[in-house]
């Protein structure tokens, strides 16, 4: 009897949490159905709204309704319209993966923008969406077993209103139908006399407000408003969406609800200190997402819907390599050689220890980024767990070194273990269509962080396990300068490996698979196997890179170097620079460390000024204190994140895109015609006006 009572009690505790999952899940599904964008950035937006609500309500002491209106409706609408108009409208017919990359970029950039605007101070005890200050200021019923606090009641009420509202809205039929038609083909819908832009804007606003609402509602559950907590919310919502196959809003709603209840039941019934309780409970959404993705056979045969009028888009511009005459390629190589040699000489003899350290860290990171070149650029799999592979490599290196193995050998062992982890994960998920595979890697990364990293046998205890610098053939690489040379050798060797795979048969097979999966099968290529091979190779490279990073920083330090958030930033960085280019990985790695440091150095004067003139006040003070420590990293992440927005236009990456621009300009300067003109015997058949946006033919 009491067990049953407990069960009911936990269920009631779980329903409000489930409602929040459900709200975000509905927003995600609605948006995916109507815009084809699986907008991961909704998590960031939920955070933005929660933070805004906190600031208005607690710091500016606004009343509930204006604060809620601004944080949820105004912010939701503004963001929706901005995203739709500035970004997604231009990629409506882009493949789902291109849109996913864009949303990834926003997911990285938005929280940092929020932090810059409202400040990075701790925001403890977020207020509920109810006219009281704290959740436990209002309880209903006042006593008894099934007491709900203010935030839970607010959640139930808000969810009820939303569900009834959406139901009434979609009962009107035509709107829902039009919304789905926009995804299939906005052009066809326009031909039917429907304003596709308006329909899509409406769906953006709806789903965006849902995300904002979910953010404000869930905030009181956490001790403070912190963007990372919202990723957990995101994964739970994704799991709910997958239950509904990314298409069914009612099932997504029920899935979210069920997940919340299940989590509360587990929290109640599992013994508090057991492995299950500490391990399974926080990872429940990931586990559910994983099991779902693994079990859904129907997903395996799904093909992305293509716009029937997609063929009217002109073909993408030829890659730079085709436009560039041979002499220019040679010149580029010489130039690159000079830059690398010059950079190294600078590091060896001119720059001080700080800058050499930054560059070395960047070169070590470049090895990890090379793994993304393999996985994303060659394999076409968006992997959001590359930092986890690097962490596996780093942990393994640290533990093997402690058994007296030499450091380089330990790094090789780390690569091997990361490859095994990659093999298991890849075998489980690579049969899924691209977007689901990407989500599964995200789930894995979060599960790794929440469940595996705290385990001692994985991470080697709570203090980061030390990794010494190697001594090879009597040469000690203890100093940063000598270690830089070692790291450069590693990058060069692995860069060659990546190029060999990319330009070799494996790369060609995967080019074919990317072009047409069905045709590739018809000539005897096994796409899953090719992708798996490259995924595993990527995991191995990441593992080796993780070992190198740990070796450089002296310890396998998970929170410093390998959190899942880094995975996201790195993916965005590599894709922006050029997913298929080895030089993009290297430039990306070095930029990741040099750019924030440069910003810091350039804008160190406001801090110096403030300490010298402590009596500065007013606007000057608030402006100058904007440049507090850490702002540069925030700005860097924002720029990296926003860089991903260029992906839809230049799937080949900015380096390649700028390269072809510059090449064309130089070629014109010297009066030589681009190489393609001389080889193609017929004039181009493309008679379309040149102002049509290029189609998003894609690396995925």
């Amino acid at each position: 009897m009491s067990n049953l009572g407990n069960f009911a009690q936990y269920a009631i505790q779980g329903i409000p949490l489930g409602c929040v999952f459900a709200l975000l899940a509905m927003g995600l599904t609605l948006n995916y159905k109507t815009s084809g964008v699986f907008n991961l950035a909704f998590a960031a937006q939920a955070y933005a709204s929660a933070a805004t609500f906190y600031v208005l309500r607690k710091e500016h002491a606004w009343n509930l309704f204006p604060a809620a209106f601004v944080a949820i409706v105004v912010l939701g609408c503004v963001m929706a319209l901005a995203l739709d108009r500035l970004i997604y409208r231009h990629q409506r017919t882009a493949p789902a993966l291109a849109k996913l990359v864009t949303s990834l970029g926003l997911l990285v950039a938005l929280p940092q923008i929020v932090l810059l605007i409202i400040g990075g101070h701790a925001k403890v005890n977020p207020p509920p969406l109810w006219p009281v200050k704290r959740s436990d200021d209002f309880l209903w019923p006042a006593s008894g077993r099934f007491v709900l606090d203010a935030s839970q009641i607010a959640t139930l009420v808000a969810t009820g209103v939303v569900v009834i509202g959406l139901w009434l809205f979609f009962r009107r039929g035509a709107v829902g139908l039009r919304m789905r038609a926009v995804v299939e083909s906005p052009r066809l819908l326009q031909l039917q006399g429907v304003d596709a832009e308006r329909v899509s804007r409406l769906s953006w606003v709806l789903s965006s407000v849902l995300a904002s609402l979910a953010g404000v509602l869930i905030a009181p559950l956490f001790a403070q408003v912190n963007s990372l907590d919202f990723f957990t919310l995101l994964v739970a919502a994704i799991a709910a969406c997958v239950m509904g196959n990314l298409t069914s809003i009612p099932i997504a709603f029920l899935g979210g609800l069920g997940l919340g209840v299940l989590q509360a039941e587990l929290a109640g019934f599992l013994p508090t200190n057991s492995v299950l309780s500490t391990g399974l409970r926080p990872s429940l959404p990931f586990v559910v997402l994983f099991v779902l993705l693994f079990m859904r056979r129907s997903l395996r045969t799904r093909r992305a819907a293509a716009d029937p009028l997609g063929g009217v888009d002109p073909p993408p511009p030829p890659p730079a390599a085709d436009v560039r005459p041979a002499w220019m390629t040679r010149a580029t190589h010489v130039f690159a050689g000079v830059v690398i040699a010059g950079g190294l000489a600078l590091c060896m003899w001119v720059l001080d220890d700080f800058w050499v350290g930054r560059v070395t860290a960047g070169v070590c990171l470049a090895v990890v980024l090379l793994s993304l070149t393999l996985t994303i650029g060659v394999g076409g799999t968006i992997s959001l767990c590359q930092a986890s592979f690097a962490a596996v490599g780093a942990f393994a290196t640290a533990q093997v070194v402690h058994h007296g193995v030499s450091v380089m050998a330990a790094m090789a062992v780390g690569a091997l273990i990361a490859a095994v982890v990659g093999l298991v994960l890849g075998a489980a998920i690579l049969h899924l269509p691209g977007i689901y595979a990407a989500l599964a890697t995200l789930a894995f990364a979060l599960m790794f962080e929440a469940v595996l990293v705290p385990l001692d046998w994985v991470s080697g205890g709570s203090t980061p396990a030390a990794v010494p610098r190697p001594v090879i053939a009597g040469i000690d690489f203890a100093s940063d300068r000598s270690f830089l040379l070692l790291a450069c050798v590693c990058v060069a060797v692995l860069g060659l490996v990546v190029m060999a795979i990319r330009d070799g048969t494996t790369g060609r097979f995967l080019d074919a698979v990317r072009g047409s999966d069905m045709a590739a099968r018809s000539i005897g290529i096994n796409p899953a196997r090719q992708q798996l091979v490259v995924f595993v190779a990527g995991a191995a490279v990441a593992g080796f890179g993780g070992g190198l990073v740990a070796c450089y920083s002296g310890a396998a330090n998970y929170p410093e170097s390998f959190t899942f958030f880094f995975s996201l930033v790195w993916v965005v960085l590599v894709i922006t620079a050029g997913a298929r280019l080895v030089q993009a990985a290297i430039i990306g790695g070095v930029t990741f460390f040099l750019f924030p440091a440069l910003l810091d150095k350039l804008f160190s004067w406001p801090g110096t000024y403030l300490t010298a003139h402590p009596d500065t006040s007013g606007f000057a003070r608030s402006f100058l204190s904007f440049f507090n420590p850490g702002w540069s990293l925030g700005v860097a992440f924002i720029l990296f994140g926003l860089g991903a927005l260029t992906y839809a236009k230049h799937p080949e990456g900015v380096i390649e895109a700028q390269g072809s621009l510059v090449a064309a300009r130089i070629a014109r300067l010297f009066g030589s015609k681009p190489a393609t003109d001389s080889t193609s015997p017929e004039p181009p058949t493309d008679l379309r006006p040149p102002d049509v946006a290029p189609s998003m033919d894609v690396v995925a």
Partner: protein
Amino acid sequence: MTAVTTPAASTPAVTPLLFASGMGKSYQGIAALIDVTISVDAGELVALIGPNGAGKSTLFDCMSGVQTPDRGVVRFDGRDLAGMAQFRRARLGLGRTFQRIELFPGLTVRDHLLVADRAQRRRGGMLRDLTFRSRPRPEELDRCEAVLEQLGLTRDADRPAEALSLGRGRVVELARALICQPRLLFLDEPSSGLDESETDEMAEVLEAIRQEREIAIVLCEHDVAFVERLASRTYVLDTGRLIAEGPTREVMASEVVRAAYLGDGI
């Protein structure tokens, strides 16, 4: 094998190269294929005709492994193909082309053939890539040139696939299938979207490769003249059922076919 017969009446005397019997497939209760049986002998050119929605593409997909049939057995060269993945069937010697053209954008025509040749011979492997032994070898290039020349593609060999016209694209698909040295080719509407002269060329090419390479070909077609010119035997599908089979000329002349294919009014 002389008169137009009702379905499944003729049992082949020798083991045919391809024998698909009792094929059935339905989508959410709607039957797309009902108990269809066809057989193809080595080196034979057989056509499969029928109105839109007759189940031709479904039958193709079930035989080449793109879809799994609900019922029925497909035997190729005496071997049961049940549950075999599409790429494994391709390696056994079942080639195919597509109704909606499926090329590899970014790859040149020659690359298409090199990739197909390697995939078929299973000469991939990362180890080879890592030891820098993945450049095309002379014998691979020779095989490639031979096919290019036979299909008149030499001129376009270094052009990217997306720069080709639809007609040339179809020829590239054919070349890509041919270099895999198939023993049986499924051609899904090879003449669709082609103009008259291109259709003529395609017919000549098909005739030539059938004779020179002794490949069995199954054509799925709408163009009656094209079928009459090429196919020795024809199967007719209508609403998922086989309604006639036999020598092409007799099948085309039969009342039941004309009624189904051209409408009841004739």
